[in-house]
């Protein structure tokens, strides 16, 4: 699905990703753990096409050179980023934003755009599964949402857009245990042999609910260790110190 080779990214003169290699197959769930400042969010932005980085290396996505596509083209190809800090857009109702988003992706993929009525049916059902009240859909996007609401709204968008590759950046931070379960259920119900996940987290607890196939440790812009889900338990016990000189 995605093959990242010797990925380097810098801002101004500061190098953040320093030669990162990672291969994720179809249907696989990978977790990336790492201390603050190790470059996890930067990786998520570089994968999804945020501008402002000097990038070198290769990223192959379904045989395409991802680095040649801009952010919206990547989104339309099926890449989805659940943001660590979802952005507020005043005056734009969540409903309206989600429909605009879904329709631009559908249009790019040669599907008919949904009218307001058909869209409402779909969104209401999905919102219910994620325990999102309808009144939240009528509020401006992320404005005044609690931390938990913002994260659930990200998962709602994911389940609406049905992407083929999902990057989740610390979606679990700031969630209480109930919200964590709801979010994990949302993710698990989307697990599919055709869909891959890259889950960025600080804590092992999320991985109790969403069991990854592989766990990687990111330190100073490089993957320094890879293992199965038991690696996450190790990290929980012993911290990152053992991998960082």
């Amino acid at each position: 699905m995605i093959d990242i080779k010797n990925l380097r990214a810098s801002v101004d003169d500061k190098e953040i990703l320093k030669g990162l290699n990672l291969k994720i197959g179809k249907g696989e769930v990978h977790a990336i753990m790492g201390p603050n400042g190790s470059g996890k969010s930067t990786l998520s932005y570089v994968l999804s096409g945020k501008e402002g980085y000097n990038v070198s290396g290769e990223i192959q996505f379904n045989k395409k050179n991802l680095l040649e596509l801009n952010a919206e083209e990547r989104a339309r190809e099926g890449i989805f980023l659940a943001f660590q800090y979802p952005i507020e857009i005043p005056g734009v109702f969540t409903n309206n934003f989600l429909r605009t988003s879904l329709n631009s992706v559908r249009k790019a993929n040669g599907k008919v755009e949904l009218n307001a009525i058909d869209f409402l049916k779909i969104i209401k059902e999905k919102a219910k599964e994620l325990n999102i009240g309808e009144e939240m859909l009528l509020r401006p996007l992320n404005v005044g949402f609690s931390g938990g609401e913002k994260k659930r709204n990200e998962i709602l968008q994911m389940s609406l857009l049905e992407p083929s590759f999902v990057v989740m950046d610390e979606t679990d931070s700031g969630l209480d245990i109930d919200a964590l379960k709801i979010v994990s259920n949302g993710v698990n119900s989307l697990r599919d042999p055709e869909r891959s996940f890259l889950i960025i987290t600080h804590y092992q607890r999320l991985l109790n609910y969403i069991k990854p196939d592989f766990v990687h440790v990111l330190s100073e812009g490089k993957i320094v260790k890879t293992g199965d889900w038991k690696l996450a338990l190790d990290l929980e016990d012993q911290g990152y110190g053992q991998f960082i000189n």
Partner: protein
Amino acid sequence: MSNGQEFIKNYKQGSDYAHGFVTDIETIDVPKGLSKEVVHFISKQKKEPQWMLNWRLKAFDRLQSMKEPDWQKPKYPKINYQDLYYYSAPKSLTDQPKSLDDIDPEIRKTYEKLGIPLLEQKKLAGIAVDAVFDSVSVATTFKDKLNEIGVIFCSISEATREHPELVQKYLGSVIPMSDHFFATLNSAVFTDGSFVYIPPGVRCPMELSTYFRINASNTGQFERTLIIADKGSYVSYLEGCTAPMRDENQLHAANVELVALDDAEIKYSTVQNWYPGDKEGNGGIYNFVTKRGACRGKNSKISWTQVETGSAITWKYPSCILQGDNSQGEFYSVAITNNYQKADTGTKMIHLGKNTRSKIISKGISAGHADNTYRGLVSIHPKATGAKNYTQCDSLLVGNKCGAHTIPYIENKNSTSEIEHEATTSKISDDQLFYCRQRGLNQEESVSLIVNGFCKEVLQQLPMEFAVEAQKLVGISLEGSVG
């Protein structure tokens, strides 16, 4: 590195302006320049009664001792008033068309291109249209239906002939003839525009609207609109404006007067999309307009909503004189400037009566090298006990070569009044744009969505039929502002 801060790319072409075509028809023009003869000529073309001609001539005399104001922020090269034409009419209309079917097919096509059907069978549901082409009104639809309930909706020229008592009573009663240079100029040479009278107790059952189209070159457009809502009546009125693309600047100096008597309400909406000039700032309309409403009766209300996206320079302050006790004035404005456009706009709320209330919501959006100024006056007079005003002025910057300014003037002479003012300035952030694009929207769709969100409160005030159009216009006028 192309991140959102480094905006300002080319406005694709001047040709993005969809209404920029010219209609090829034969016209009658007056001799160039401003003179008594020209005033006589216009009045004669309109078959006006003597009193109307005298009124114009008086304005012409006053004008001789007046000076063009220059306190506004956007400066412009001196206009040579002797180098302009003051009248242009399609030749085919010298004998007024008897019915809508008699309209010159070329003109009819123009309106069809603009999406404004004139033939009643093809009408927009429930909207009566008056169409003004250069200096004359070419068609007013739905007249008969409105006549049945006593609503008068016709061109101002027709009104001077058919309803002289109303025109004489109210014309110049809100904007005095010698108010200021452009108002006086308009009083002398105004060409056409709409007249509306709503009788007591009548709620006008359809939107009334006028479309102004400047076609001829080197021609000023000086329209005049007068709307009177008699006791207990209601009317919603909308004006739209477009012009061809031309290299030279064209002057548009209209006067609009509204009068609301006891318990009456007038809702006046404008979607102004005059040609803004090309991306280098050549050409475009000078939109110097005087709009003023008098809430003359108790419990009356006047609400201005404007969406200003066009013109090279927009200079206007739709205002309310709140004379009647408990009367209300509202001003909702979106002003978008891109490339080298300039706007200096806002409102005046003059509180004279007791418990008068006013509300001002202004959203200024500036992109490219444009400059956008909100200028507003809230004036509370000594007798306006219990008056209240709420003002909110928000500016949104797209890029870092544009400017936004907020200049609120407050004069308070009554200690029982309450005045609230809020102002914010923000920028479209790279993070907002990226978030939208990550969800599949392209750059322009993202800007349009964010800006529409910013303007929502104002756009919501527009009649439903026009709100969707206005949203699209917001997107189109900002095309190319981010790159």
